[in-house]
Each structure stands twice: as structure tokens, then as C-alpha cells.
């Protein structure tokens, strides 16, 4: 028997990812009702839409073609597909002692969580579609049909944004190796996300100095950029995608280093 071992390894890896995805998807389907509730709990952009619609926000935004309803509806959709709970899962796995058997598996643990998040998003698609249908009845005249190519591009950008947000949380999840209750860190991570991502207010309404600070963090690229893209608001697509990729690689590097250190430090619960 002769084969190219290198290619074989890649194929093997793809097969593993595929089966992990199928496996996690089946698991997530079991929790459809819960996922629907999670999806319902992402209504913040709609509440904010209600508030902003009563103000003269259009005076604050200089850019042409900004549509408030479209922006917050897009933000709602982007938020639905960039939800991350990896710190919570990882902490639970460590505290409950499940990490040790996971470490013995030949697949890096990262992929287990990453695929489980993606599987959850796939389960979310019909739920979000239903919510959008209901919203189109409640908020008539505010819907638009993006072009097919735009839709594909947006899907890719949302996926990229999700990956970066996942990497941020994964990097911080590594602190579970050193401290118990790392999930409190998740509370802290939520704050810059809330205020710098454009979830509660479009970043264009910020004073210049503050929006400059915001753009130094990855957060505006996680929500504001995809939401603007989806709502048809003019954005620099190439530049924003490059920045997202930069953050993904940077965080991947950091979390890999932390993971190596953490595993060495890890002594297994109850051992």
C-alpha cells in the first residue's frame, strides 16, 4: 500500500471535522427549544431600534444612505450568528473532570467547541428565519432583499466575525487552567462587546475620539461591519476583511501559546 502521508493527514482531519459537525448538529437538534429561547434573548438590537427611532439620529450620522431600521435589523441577524459561549463550556468541562479524556483524543479540543458552535448556528437558521418573517409583519416597509452575491459575501463575513469572536473567548478561556470560575471573565468581555461593537448604537454616532478607540479593538468589525454590509450601507469591504483575518490569526497565535502553557500546568480535577 502506498499513499502520500501528508495528504492523507489533511483528508483525515477533514473527515474528523465533518463527523464532529454531524455529531454536534444531531446534539443541537435535541436542544431546539432551548436554542429558540436563546435566539429570543437576542432582542437587544430591536429594543435599541425602538429607542433610536424616536430620536433625530439621522442628524448625527453624516454618511449618506444610512437606514436606521435596516441597520438594527441587520445587527439583530449578525448578533444571532455570532453568539459564543466557549468559556462557559470549557470551564464546565475542566471543573467536571471531562477535560482529561478529551486531552487523550487525537483531535485538538479547539475543534470540538468550534464545530459545536457552528452546529448551533445551523440549528438557528430556521428559527431566525421565522423571527425575521414575524418582524416583517410587525415592521412593514422596512425590509429589503440583498443581492445574491451580497448575501454570500455577508454570510462569509459573519462567519469570519464569529470566528474572531470565538477566538477572543477561546484565548480568555485558557485562564480556566489557572483560575476557577473563569466564567466571570465572560461578564467582562461582554462590556466592550456591548458598547464598542455597534450593538446598542451605530458607531457613526460616536464622538470621533471614542470611535477611534473603538476601531483599535476588534469589536466594531464583529458587528458593525457585517451589519453595515448587510444593510447596504457603504463600507470598505477589503480593508475590513483584512483586519478581521489579522485579528483571527493574532488571537489564534496567542491562544495556541496559552493552550500549550495551560496543558502543562493542568493537573486534572480530583486527581
Amino acid at each position: 500500500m502506498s499513499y502520500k502521508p501528508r495528504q492523507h493527514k489533511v483528508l483525515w482531519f477533514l473527515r474528523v471535522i465533518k463527523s464532529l459537525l454531524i455529531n454536534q448538529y444531531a446534539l443541537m437538534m435535541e436542544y431546539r427549544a432551548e436554542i429558540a429561547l436563546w435566539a429570543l434573548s437576542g432582542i437587544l438590537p430591536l429594543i435599541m431600534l425602538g429607542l433610536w427611532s424616536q430620536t433625530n439620529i439621522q442628524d448625527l450620522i453624516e454618511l449618506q444612505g444610512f437606514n436606521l431600521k435596516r441597520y438594527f435589523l441587520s445587527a439583530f441577524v449578525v448578533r444571532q450568528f455570532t453568539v459564543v459561549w466557549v468559556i462557559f463550556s470549557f470551564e464546565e468541562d475542566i471543573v467536571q473532570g471531562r477535560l482529561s479524556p478529551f486531552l487523550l483524543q487525537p483531535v485538538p479540543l479547539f475543534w470540538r467547541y468550534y464545530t459545536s458552535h457552528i452546529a448551533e448556528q445551523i440549528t438557528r437558521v430556521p428559527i431566525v428565519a421565522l423571527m425575521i418573517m414575524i418582524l416583517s409583519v410587525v415592521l412593514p416597509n422596512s425590509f429589503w432583499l440583498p443581492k445574491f452575491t451580497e448575501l454570500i459575501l455577508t454570510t462569509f463575513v459573519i462567519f469570519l466575525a464569529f470566528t474572531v469572536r470565538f477566538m477572543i473567548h477561546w484565548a480568555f478561556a485558557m485562564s480556566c487552567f489557572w483560575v476557577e470560575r473563569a466564567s466571570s471573565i465572560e461578564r467582562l468581555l461582554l462590556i466592550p462587546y456591548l458598547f464598542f461593537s455597534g450593538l446598542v448604537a451605530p458607531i457613526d454616532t460616536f464622538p470621533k475620539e471614542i470611535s477611534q478607540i473603538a476601531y483599535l479593538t476588534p469589536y466594531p468589525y464583529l458587528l458593525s461591519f457585517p451589519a453595515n454590509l448587510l444593510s447596504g450601507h457603504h463600507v470598505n469591504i477589503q480593508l475590513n476583511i483584512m483586519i478581521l483575518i489579522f485579528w483571527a490569526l493574532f488571537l489564534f497565535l496567542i491562544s495556541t501559546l496559552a493552550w500549550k502553557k495551560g496543558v502543562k500546568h493542568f493537573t486534572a480535577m480530583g486527581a
Partner: protein
Amino acid sequence: MKSKFNKYINISMVLLRFWQTSLAIELEYQLNMLIELVSVLGNLFGSLFILSLFYKSGPLLGGWNFFEALIVLGIYMILEGITTSILAPNLSRIVNHVKNGTLDYVLLKPIDSQLWLSLRIISPWGLPSQLIGILLIIYSLVSIQVDLSLFNILIFFTCLFASSLILYSLWFLLASTSIWFVKVWNATEVLRSILVAGRYPMSAYPRGLRTIFTFLIPIAFLTTVPAEVIIGRVSNEYIAIILIIAAIFFAISRRFWKFALLHYTSASS
């Protein structure tokens, strides 16, 4: 009469013990206090920033000036602190009790089950939010020159008590549905995410949302109406309305728990 009085003394002693032990457990994690403080301050500055954005487009938000809106935010923060201290740590456990069948033991205890499930634990991590909320309210009241007489302070705490009772009843109603659905923890997350609307005065919302937040989910009575009473935008009789609504909600939660228990079949039986 005397026996009833003794009963209350007993219950308070028991609660005191419960709280001592739960505080002792929580204080193992002292770093949490720092994280909680940073998180509350971060949320405060973020909220102030967003509020300032709203006021950039006009001097009023739904007819409220900046300091009046701050009072609403302050009440919201106090309620958030109460959620962290009491509601979340206690009511999140009902689900587990139902799932693991340990609710049986709770029901067998010689103490009211709703009381035990609701007040067994107290967590210190809600304190920063409560303190900062109170400071925010005092600051705003001084800024809009409402005199801080003893009477006003009494009114304030009465309102706060009533709105906490409404909040508690909402949480407890949802948590007790776990008797049927077991996994309803996410439902309280949904409630929490809707309650966020209470950060801003109700009149700042469009009519449709305002109706939902007043009649369907009584968010208006959690933050806006108490703020209106304190500022003096409405007459003091409104306190009676909040108290009546609170009493109704509490009675419903109590009834509903009794009703839910009729359907409790215990795990693995």
C-alpha cells in the same frame, strides 16, 4: 398571635444562618468582587455614554431630561444588583432540583418551599451594582433639586420594595414552570434580555413597544413609574398602584407555585 410571632422570629433566624453559610462560600472567591466591580463600572460608563448619545440629538428623551433618565438607570442598576444577589443564585437552582429529583427533599423540609427556594442563598456580588445605583440616584436627585426629606426617602424605598417584588414574581413564575418543562433556565435569560428595556424611560419607546412593556411585561412599573414618583412627576398615589400591582403579582406567583406542585411527579418515579 404569639406563636405566629415566634414563627417569624424562627424563620428570620433560619434565613440568617442560610445567608451566613452562603456568604462564607461565596467569599472563597474574592477575586469575583473585583471582577464584579469592574463589570459594574464598565456597564455604568457604557450606559452613560449611550445615554449621552441620545441626548446629543435633542434635550429630552421621551420628555425626560438627562438627570431624570439617570434615576431610571439607577433604579435599573439596583434591581440588577438584587437579581445578582438573590434572584439568579436561588431561582437558577429550581431547575436543577427538578432535574435531579432533589426537590423532594426541599418539599419535605419544615419550611415553606417557596421561601426556601427563593431566599436560601444570598450572594455578595450584587452589592456593587446596588451601591452605584443608589449613588447615581442621589446624585441625580440633588442635581434636579428634589429635596431628600425623610418622607421622600421612605417613598423611594417603598417603590423599590414594590418593584423588586414584581421582578421577583416574574422570575419565580418563569422558574416554577420548570416543574413541567424542566429546562427553562433559558427562559429567564429571555426575561433578562427583555428587562434591559427598563434602563430607559418608557416614554422614549414607540407606542407599540410601550404597550408591551406596560401591560404584557410590566417593565414600566419596575423602573419608570418608581422614578416618576420619586421625581414628583406623578402624585404620590401612584405608590398605591405599584404596591397593588406588586401584591397581585406576588399572589399569582404564590398560587402558581402551589398549582405547579400539584403537577410535580418527582424524578425517576
